[in-house]
């Protein structure tokens, strides 16, 4: 009799277990479906809403000054390109240099730990803090007003951790035999870095550059305080003017999107068209990083 009772109890327990198990399984599936539907929903929504205001005119002309008669983001595209180029020109050599120092020169010790801590911390600082810092620092030290250059300098600090870390990881994968081979043939350290390490880790550097472009294109909070809101095209009559543009104000695509969205109403549709352009850029960047990673694997 007693045995039968315990048997019943354990049967009940098994049934309970099974019930809980099915519930948990459903929970997992629901959560995964939610995530996927967020992505799909976001993409479709942007696509549908974005196409409305999209035209060749929209991406090939700059916006006309107030009263607005023409909506166009060419000026913002140019500004974004300026930001990308200047930021990368500043940050890539410094980041790659730092990565080389960390992997090839520094001994595992205090300095490397401190640098690793700082890059970790820098990558955790939100962009709005970078923006606040940039607006004070570059103004008080370099006397830079709102300008593309000030925005680029701010972004350069922001993307430094990405470049250092990604490059460092790829330098670490260069086989130790390569180094020994070069050294054994009598190469000095710098010569070895120049001819062996850098060519071998070029994919890593390229990946870091593309990831940085993604970060720059998506950034907005840091730029509002440093790069300003202008959307005009540079008036280029000579080579000097190309550089002069860097000292002007310039809103990136994201900042322009925010402007459109904040004003609302009719302009909301142009906000979505700008969003569509940005999402396409993000997609291209994601695909590019994949392709590079795949090429990298094949070579190995």
């Amino acid at each position, binding site marked *: 009799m007693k045995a039968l009772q315990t048997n019943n109890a354990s049967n009940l327990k098994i049934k309970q277990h099974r019930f809980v198990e099915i519930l948990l399984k459903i929970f997992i599936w629901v959560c995964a479906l939610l995530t996927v539907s967020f992505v799909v929903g976001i993409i479709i929504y942007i696509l549908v809403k974005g196409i409305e205001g999209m035209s060749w005119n929209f991406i090939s002309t700059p916006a006309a000054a107030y009263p607005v008669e023409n909506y166009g983001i060419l000026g913002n595209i140019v500004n974004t390109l300026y930001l990308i180029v200047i930021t990368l020109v500043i940050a890539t050599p410094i980041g790659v240099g730092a990565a080389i120092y960390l992997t090839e020169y520094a001994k595992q010790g205090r300095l490397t730990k401190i640098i690793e801590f700082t890059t970790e911390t*820098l990558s955790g600082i939100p962009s709005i803090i970078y923006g606040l810092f940039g607006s004070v*620092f570059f103004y008080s030290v370099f006397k830079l007003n709102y300008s593309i250059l000030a925005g680029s300098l701010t972004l350069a600090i922001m993307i430094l951790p990405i470049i250092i870390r990604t490059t460092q990881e790829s330098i670490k994968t260069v086989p130790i035999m390569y180094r020994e081979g070069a050294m054994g043939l009598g190469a000095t350290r710098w010569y070895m870095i120049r001819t062996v390490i850098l060519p071998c880790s070029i994919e890593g550097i390229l990946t870091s550059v593309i990831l940085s472009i993604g970060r720059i294109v998506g950034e907005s*909070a840091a730029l509002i305080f440093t790069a300003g809101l202008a959307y005009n095209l540079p008036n280029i009559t000579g080579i000097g003017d190309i550089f002069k543009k860097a000292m002007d104000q310039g809103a990136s695509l994201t900042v322009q999107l925010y402007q459109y969205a904040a004003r609302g109403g009719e302009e909301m549709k142009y906000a979505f068209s700008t969003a569509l352009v940005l999402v396409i850029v993000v997609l291209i960047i994601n695909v590019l990083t994949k392709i590079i990673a795949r090429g990298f694997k094949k070579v190995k």
Partner: protein
Amino acid sequence: MAIIKASAEAIAANSSSETEKLASVKKQKPKNTIIGVGNGLTEKIMHIVFLICSSVAIIALLLITIYMISSGAPIISKVGLKDFIFGDKWAPTKEIFGISPMILTSVFGTIAAILIGVPIGLMTSVFLAEIAPKSVVKVVQPAVELLAGIPSVIYGLLGAMIIKPLSYKIEMLVFKDNPEHIYTGGANMFSAVIVLAIMILPTIINISRTAIIAVPEEYREASYGLGATHIQTIFKVILPAAKSGIATAVVLGVGRAIGEAMAIILVAGNMANMPEAFNSVKFLTTGVVQEFAYSSGVHREALFGIGLVLFVFIMIINIVLNLILKGKAKAK
């Protein structure tokens, strides 16, 4: 960002033993005395150049810290630390600067976003790592990466177009018998929390997925061997074993949520109210962005004061993160 962090973490985990090897090999190597290509002077110069490059990051962090303190501290000492942080009235035109509503909004907003985002994100990562067939992973994983890459302003835009009206409908339902309620039109705490919860998903998913994949196969086999089912194995063996990775994911999610401005600026409202679900609120971040353009004098100083408070929060989060990572390295 999240992808990089996750991948860097994964690579770091693999390569820590490699670096040790590398270091030991380096030690064995004789001092570089071979006469070869290049000369001693360029060697020394390049060494110094690389050293300078690597110190840029340190200098930048120092400068940021110094400038955040030097531009935020004056107003805090003028108002008084207690009144600034605990004062519950924010009226810049009357020069009353109390930011406790913003601090509480940021803290509770982040907690709420984490409470919603972490279960969904964690379960999605379980799905990707343990349940989904490979063909499904191939579709979902890039989708999550795309979610991670979408600029935060776009989240804000979508929030304003989709979540704000929804939230307004809920608000009208909830408060239909309460004539005293000040309607927010959907720009409220509730909407902001939803946007934040979706925004932190990719961070949570990518990092916890890496942690789950890193759990040794033997654990699973042992669990199955003892007669445990798949679900039991996941919840009783794998998730506990991956807990430090999941903790990292949560902390990074907190960091992302508390520092986010552009995604919630259009949906949070514009009043420094105490955080209630259907109040128009100001986060630390949105307060700064909304008022920066037209602020001047003491008002702008106060915004830098807010920036400093936010900076302190972020630094605390970073230190916690570092402790978790250190604990993880030790456990290995």
